């Protein structure tokens, strides 16, 4: 059992959970106390010792289910198999080709037995598995309980595992293959979870729509952490350091008694930010995450006014502040309730519009952030207006979701806008967003 627990811990580490040696020792001590008989106690003991946060707890429970539940069912299945007398194989001929008749399960059992013992013994384990799966398909999936749901990225469902374990291929004699299957599956789950842990480095255009809520969750946690750091800085700034000269001056009226200590206060202001966000189709895949990110930062870190444009520009600050983030994103990206016309992107027209209506909002203390690929469809980029904007504001940060090597290709005007920007950087992943937040 110690070995199995060690493998379980390995699977957790592969999933990105940082399990230290002391926690493993605690886990062993906990298991010694509660024992293995009761699955709930066993699971709870592992969660209590190995998880250190709510997210860790979810990972431990998921890996636990994948890792241990198949083993527990396997014991039950093995007991059943031993009781049943499967004599069908000894009655059939050993020739492979002539056995493609009779019931499907019998056929498969024959294929497995035949493949394992005679023709395919020399093949490595994974090759054998692939062969069997392709055989399933050739026989016809619908008639089989085995591959009813195609596993994604190598992760097998509980049904798959159950079904495979109940075939003679994974009978009690074939312990090594069984262990291998269970290990492989938990590693696949762990790999998928590790992908989730490394999701901050995944390009945002590779995120499926079904993962959007998860991504927004991650962004919310990131912004919470950034808000934490910023609010701690502000607290430190409020406390400050003792200013002896100022104290002496202030306390001159008290005849030298240091009655009224003065502090050196480093004022940390909330940044004034104006965001211009391109919501055309080419950029919308990142715009949603960017808007969610800014939405989170607006609580502590910055005063943010958000504008979206395609050819026209309009302010959406009120929508973002009034609605929950998901609704706000949808409304903004679908330009619901916003009077906009969405043909082709025209940065020049958008800048001119901005100049006409909102230039007064830009001051020496304002940071302007532009999210867009600068693809102007060969319209006039209005560099003069952009220059005026750069002279008026504190700085301009341009976040380009395209890869750098594409910036000079086609109708991209980024090279013409770049001289007026303080920073032009690629922004495709959550990590890029986080680094950008640090620079606000």
């Amino acid at each position: 059992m110690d070995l199995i627990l060690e493998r379980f811990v390995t699977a957790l580490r592969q999933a990105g959970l940082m399990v230290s040696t002391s926690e493993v020792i605690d886990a062993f001590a906990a298991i010694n106390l509660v024992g293995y008989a009761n699955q709930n106690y066993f699971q709870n003991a592992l969660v209590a010792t190995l998880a250190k946060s709510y997210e860790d707890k979810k990972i431990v429970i998921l890996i636990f289910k994948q890792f241990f539940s198949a083993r527990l069912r396997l014991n039950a299945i093995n007991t059943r198999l031993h009781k049943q007398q499967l004599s069908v194989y000894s009655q059939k001929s050993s020739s492979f080709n002539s056995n493609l008749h009779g019931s499907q399960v019998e056929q498969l059992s024959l294929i497995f037995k035949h493949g394992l013992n005679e023709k395919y013994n020399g093949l490595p384990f994974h090759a054998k598995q692939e062969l069997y799966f392709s055989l399933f398909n050739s026989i016809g999936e619908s008639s089989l309980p085995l591959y009813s749901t195609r596993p994604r990225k190598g992760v097998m469902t509980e049904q798959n595992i159950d079904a495979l374990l109940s075939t003679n291929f994974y009978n009690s004699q074939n312990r090594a293959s069984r262990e291998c299957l269970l290990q492989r599956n938990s590693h696949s789950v762990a790999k998928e979870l590790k992908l989730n842990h490394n999701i901050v480095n995944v390009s945002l255009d590779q995120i499926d729509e079904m993962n959007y809520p998860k991504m927004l969750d991650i962004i919310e946690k990131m912004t919470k952490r950034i808000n934490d750091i910023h609010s701690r800085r502000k607290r430190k700034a409020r406390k400050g350091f003792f200013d002896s000269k100022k104290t002496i001056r202030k306390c001159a009226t008290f005849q030298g008694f240091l009655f009224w200590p003065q502090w050196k206060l480093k004022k940390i202001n909330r940044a004034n930010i104006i965001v211009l966000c391109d919501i055309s189709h080419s950029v919308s895949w990142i715009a949603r995450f960017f808007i969610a990110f800014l939405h989170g930062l607006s609580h502590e870190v910055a005063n943010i006014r958000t504008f979206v444009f395609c050819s026209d520009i309009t302010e959406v600050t009120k929508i973002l502040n009034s609605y929950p983030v998901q609704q706000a994103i949808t409304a903004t990206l679908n330009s619901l309730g916003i009077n906009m016309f969405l043909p082709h992107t025209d940065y020049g027209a958008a800048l001119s519009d901005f100049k006409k209506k909102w230039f007064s909002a830009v001051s020496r203390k304002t940071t302007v952030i532009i999210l867009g690929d600068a693809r102007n469809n060969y319209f006039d980029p209005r560099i003069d207006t952009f220059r005026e904007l750069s002279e008026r504001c504190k700085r301009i940060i341009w976040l380009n979701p395209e890869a750098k090597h594409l910036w000079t290709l086609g109708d991209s005007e980024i090279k013409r806008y770049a001289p007026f920007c303080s920073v032009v950087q690629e922004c495709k992943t959550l990590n890029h967003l986080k680094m950008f937040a640090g620079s606000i």
Partner: protein
Amino acid sequence: MHSDNLKVNSIITMQSGLRDEGYVCSQMIATTLYLAYHLEKPILVEGPAGVGKTELAKTVSIFLNTPLIRLQCYEGLDESKALYEWKYGKQLLYTQLLKDKLDQFVEKGVGLVDSIERLHNYDDIFFSAAFLEPRPLLKALQSKEGAVLLIDEIDKADQEFEAFLLEVLSDFQVSIPEIGTIKSQIKPFVFLTSNNTRQLSEALKRRCLYLYIPFPDAALECQIVRNRVPNIPEQLISQLVNFIQEIRKLDIKKRPSISETIDWARTLILVHAEVLDCEFVRSTLHIILKHEDDIRAVNEQLNMVFDSSFRAAANSD
């Protein structure tokens, strides 16, 4: 902690013991408490506000018949408020009272150097245990009958305070520069609670067992209400719990916690309600919801929520 305490000889006895003291808990909570008691490790309890984190520590202290020592954390909390402080007044008083004695003693010395050296032999007298005012942490460590130490809302304290706590949590000892290291005679049962408003340091988390208390499911919440609010009609429990469960699914700023459910149940008893109706719920929403925006949002969807909760109650029956 006494490892031979018969009350804590199994998870089931722990769970039933807590229930007898009025705290209905899940198996997860009982298991973690059992492990923490026997492994002598602190527990870090996280969860939304109002789920019973502080209440758990209080109930455990009653169950184990040990005193509860509470340290409420806040920004700016430091050693002098958490660990110890010198009794400055007593020190000054004693020096004044013993002034004559000191004069006699110093006069025996030949010259200034000799007098100072004589004083050096006794300079620790006024910085000894007799002049130490113990604060919650030191009290918990020095308690002769053991203690349940509740460090409440640790996420409100500074990182510096967290670093200071590490020695207490790992070795149950503290280092006082003037006196030395003070080890605990009986290790206290330590609870740390957190609302997760900020990230705690890894070093702190590693020293604790972890317990997350979520909002309870309908069955557990019914048991809690039944336990805390006796004489409430069974039908009413089911209706109000299902209603609260539906409210929690809505997109509101603060979801109602167990304490609000219990308060609401007590209100229903006071007004002798036997069933929930829409108008009554509308007039008492402020008991379960704490933001005006949330009350407005729920009011708008009240009929729909009511229907879903009744359906859920019917299905569970």
